[in-house]
């Protein structure tokens, strides 16, 4: 991943040879008259974990929600610029938001399982998109998704029990399983561990690392340790600007911009 203006620097990096799956060019976001993002240009490589870091209110969640057009739900929010996924402009008028969101899963800050059984939570997506024809296929999808989310062992005997009865960490893995069940290409995670204890957080981080084999993951996090642990690429946002983006290790060891350095050493934010 690289900021276009930094392309000369990152040209030597191996990942720049890869075709990025998501490309954002000059993305501006306005909430009514207030500009929340200023001309964000960012490439997100496939099958890698990209973390978006930065102080509160810097626009990282806003950017994440542009990728699956969740910002459409906010009436006063206006997005300009171009975001392409797999070469297709997602803000094109021909794009069906519903199919777009089926391709891009999302995991939220607070675990938000539906007030339904564990099984029904995971089966929700495949059902509405009619991905399965028989009850047997549905069972398979649910089991596979729970297993990929590392939750199957813990819940296989109580799939009929409400998903809301699980612990916070289990609920969040249930939400990940629910997202996986639709077989998206990309999974967006908005501070998925901020409501969890350290052990549950460690499990989710482990899971994220496994998932990147099959999915492209973009994660917003407040924890720089987490960004360093789980991501290969990091983008630092500050006051609506993308300050710096690149290989995680590089961002954390030799940041180019003084603001990045201040943030990761704890002086701003």
């Amino acid at each position: 991943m690289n900021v276009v203006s930094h392309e000369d620097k990152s040209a030597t990096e191996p990942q720049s040879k890869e075709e990025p799956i998501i490309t954002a060019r000059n993305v501006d976001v306005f909430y009514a008259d207030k500009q929340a993002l200023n001309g964000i240009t960012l490439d997100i490589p496939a099958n890698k974990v990209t973390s978006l870091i930065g102080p509160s209110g810097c626009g990282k969640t806003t950017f994440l929600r542009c990728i699956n057009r969740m910002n459409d739900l906010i009436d006063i929010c206006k997005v300009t610029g171009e975001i392409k996924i797999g070469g297709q402009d997602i803000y094109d008028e021909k794009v069906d938001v519903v199919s777009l969101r089926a391709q891009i899963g999302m995991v939220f800050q607070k675990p938000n399982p539906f007030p339904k059984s564990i099984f029904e939570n995971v089966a929700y997506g495949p059902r509405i998109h009619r991905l399965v024809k028989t009850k047997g296929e549905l069972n398979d999808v649910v089991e596979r998704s729970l297993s990929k989310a590392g939750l199957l062992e813990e819940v296989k005997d109580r799939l009929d029990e409400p998903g809301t009865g699980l612990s916070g960490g289990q609920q969040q893995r249930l939400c990940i399983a629910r997202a996986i069940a639709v077989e998206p290409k990309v999974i967006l995670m908005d501070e998925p561990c901020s409501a969890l204890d350290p052990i549950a957080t460690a499990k989710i981080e482990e899971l994220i690392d496994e998932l990147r084999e099959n999915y492209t993951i973009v994660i917003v996090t407040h924890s720089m340790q987490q960004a360093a642990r789980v991501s290969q690429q990091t983008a630092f946002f500050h006051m609506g600007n993308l300050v710096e983006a690149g290989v995680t290790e590089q961002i954390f060891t030799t940041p180019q911009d003084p603001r990045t350095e201040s943030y990761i050493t704890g002086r701003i934010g």
Partner: protein
Amino acid sequence: MQQIDIIGSRGARPLERAIQIFMVICSVIAIVITIGIVFSLAFEAYRFFQLVSLQEFLFGLQWSPQTAIRSDQVGAEGSFGAVPLITGTLLISAIAMATATPLGLASAIYLAEYASPAVRNIVKPLLEILAGIPTVVYGFFAALTVAPIIRWTGTEVGLEVASESALAAGLVMGIMIVPLISSLSDDVINAVPQSLRDASLGLGATKSETIRKVVLPAAIPGVAGSLLLATSRAIGETMIVVMAAGMAANLTANPLQAVTTITVQIVALLTGDQEFESAKTLSAFALGLLLFIVTLVLNIIAQFIVKRFSEQYD
């Protein structure tokens, strides 16, 4: 050591105590009055059941509470079978709920999920105006507008329609209940956390799929509660049925005929000069008790449903 003054200078704070006592007295008065009402109902009803057996009252199919002025008159006994009144009440309430439930729920869903803030700010107060119309005005509307329309339409297609029909009373009563259902359900739907909608939309569900499969199921306990509350309102409603449904205690399920309800009969029995010792007058209290028990049971069921589903959805 530094002195810290924690001994109150104002002693036992008499004003605080006085306010507390005042509050207690107010709530006790409310409770005592409620108990008093129940007892007076029960007492008068008991006197009625000394004249007419409970079986006859609950299962009798004939309601004609005429008591003779002279004992040698024909039909001096009067008959006090409440079944035609119960079925009449249920018929009208059922028509009212069948009208109000779809209208009320659909407008609640529209207000909570689709309407822009500008539209919501206009429509919600308008619905509340509907709730503020005196029921006697609804009564005019039912008797003078809706009933003739139904009668005319019915005659055109060759049906025999009474000029005071259960359908007219039920329809208008349904309109009256719409704001009750829509306002309560709107609150309940708004209380469903936004995070659940986000989760569903984030999975690629459409808006209507999200509403049907996530929002409404999560809101069901509250919606069921509001429907039951509306039902007890319909059962207890008086003015509309007095003016539009008629006095004839017909035992029928045909909404085009005139029926009468428990509340209408209570009004009829207690208006004008009445002999207080007669079974005719006392039967009003028995009917009142019956009405009270029915609405009480409905409210208890409503609370039970709300509680059960809330536990499941928590």
